[in-house]
């Protein structure tokens, strides 16, 4: 079945979710993956968006993290401070999804700046909820299109901690969560080595070679003893995802009547 790398990534990420896990969802690919899982094999997933919408079940994907759709379909809407203190910090989130402009071999993330902080070449949006999601969610999944500029030897800025310098450094830190258990990219997945925490190739999309994977990563990529093959999206998965994306596109392009002042 022909599909785009984004679709492959989204389906691969969705398959990682199961049962009634509580997911802290970000906009973009994570939002698509979580809702795809909810609409297919994991209807009981609990989705939380940082806007305070808890147990939300949107029929179209939100453009922003606080679209009205999220509030209307939520179990409840709580103030943002409570999302972070009473839910995330309290250890009530099973899975956090993160994206980044840069990731290093230990899963540390940069969403702040490219270049020096005080004179950046590129100013990125910044931290948002990520640093504390990275610390407190029982595990995190990172979704990122891999290039040598995104998967780097050294971050320009560490916005969110992964495995720090590896070799158990995170386990010795104050962060209660297990850290990034998977990096889902457009060629397959990386997972931390059990001993030194370095992200290594754990699974490949169909039709992608290990060399292609190595070429997309800016550090010398190691391979797990057993690199699995990730089955392509099924027709059913793709149908649900494309249907969701189509509904979303239509909703976002639907002219909103400008209110009368």
């Amino acid at each position, binding site marked *: 079945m022909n599909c785009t790398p984004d679709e492959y990534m989204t389906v691969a990420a969705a398959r990682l979710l199961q049962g009634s896990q509580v997911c802290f969802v970000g906009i973009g690919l994570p939002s698509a993956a979580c809702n795809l899982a909810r609409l297919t094999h994991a209807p009981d997933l609990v989705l939380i968006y940082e806007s305070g919408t808890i147990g939300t079940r949107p029929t179209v994907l939100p453009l922003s993290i606080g679209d009205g759709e999220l509030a209307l379909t939520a179990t409840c809407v709580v103030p943002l401070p409570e999302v972070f203190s009473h839910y995330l*910090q309290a250890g009530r989130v099973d899975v956090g999804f993160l994206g980044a402009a840069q990731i290093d071999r230990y899963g540390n993330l940069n969403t702040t700046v490219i270049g020096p902080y005080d004179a*950046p070449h590129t100013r990125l949006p910044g*931290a*948002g909820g990520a640093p*504390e999601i990275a610390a407190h969610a029982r595990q995190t999944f990172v979704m990122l299109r891999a290039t040598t500029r995104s998967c780097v030897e050294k971050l320009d800025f560490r916005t969110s901690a992964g495995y720090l310098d590896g070799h158990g450094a995170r386990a010795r830190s104050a962060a209660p969560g297990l850290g990034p258990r998977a990096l889902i990219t457009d060629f397959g997945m990386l997972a931390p080595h059990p001993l030194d925490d370095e992200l290594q190739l754990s699974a490949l999309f169909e039709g992608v070679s290990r060399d292609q994977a190595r070429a997309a990563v800016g550090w010398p990529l190691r391979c797990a003893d057993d690199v699995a093959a990730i089955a392509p999206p099924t027709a059913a998965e793709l149908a649900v995802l494309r249907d969701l994306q189509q509904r979303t596109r239509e909703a976002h392009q639907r002219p909103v009547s400008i209110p009368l002042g």
Partner: protein
Amino acid sequence: MPLMTLDEAIGTLVHEGDCVALEGFTHLIPFAAGHEIIRQRRRNLHLVRMTPDLIYDQMIGMGCARALSFSWGGNPGVGSLHRLRDAVENQWPQPLKLCEHSHAGLAAAYCAGAARLPFGVLRGYLDNDLAGHNPAVRRVACPFTGRQLAAVAAINPDVTILHAQTADRRGNVAIHGIVGAAREAALAAGRVIVTVEEIVDELAPAMNAIVLPHWVVTATVLCRGGAYPSYAQGHYQRDNAFYQRWDQISRDRAVFSDWMRQHVLQTRDHRAHLDGLRAAA
């Protein structure tokens, strides 16, 4: 709590150099009030907002701000805030000092401000570079366990401005839907301005609804459509297409400046602003 017009409220309650928070998380962003601040040429403001969004992109691009406290500065689901980036990367139209938090940190700073505590505590800023670039983040030891935690300096804006659905004639304000940290930002402030979609004789019995009592609010302003292109649950939807279009408008300094001149500076008030957008649509 007096009922004011928007130009009166901004004119009398927002001063040159103030620390100003326009809050509302994606929902209920007070665009009309931000535009009026631009029209009245307020300068040297220290702007505070979790997500600067388009309204601060506009205010920064128009030279209102000397500093920005924030936690996520993008166009949600679209990309960059180009005016914010231009200010940080190229000091255009002027340098912008950043005080950068995570969401959890800025939320804790607002909560501390609302409770009139000098600092808030969180298990945050763990093993990252944020604290090193923000002097408003320090450490505090638990006096019972000795455990080290993050402390953030309280934020108490001179003025907080919100948009809400409804006020009653006494000035009690009701907010419905996604609220973000708007209530804490208001309760932390010295003065509070709320623009609303409608004013009613009496609010529906509230019980546990989100209400700002009238004696917490300095001025209430009737301003229909005051959150557009953000939204007011129950009144109008978020104009996601406008958020996408803003990416093009804001990329170029000249295009941006023309747009602001035509749609903000040269419009008398928010009604005229919306009329202009409708005519252009």
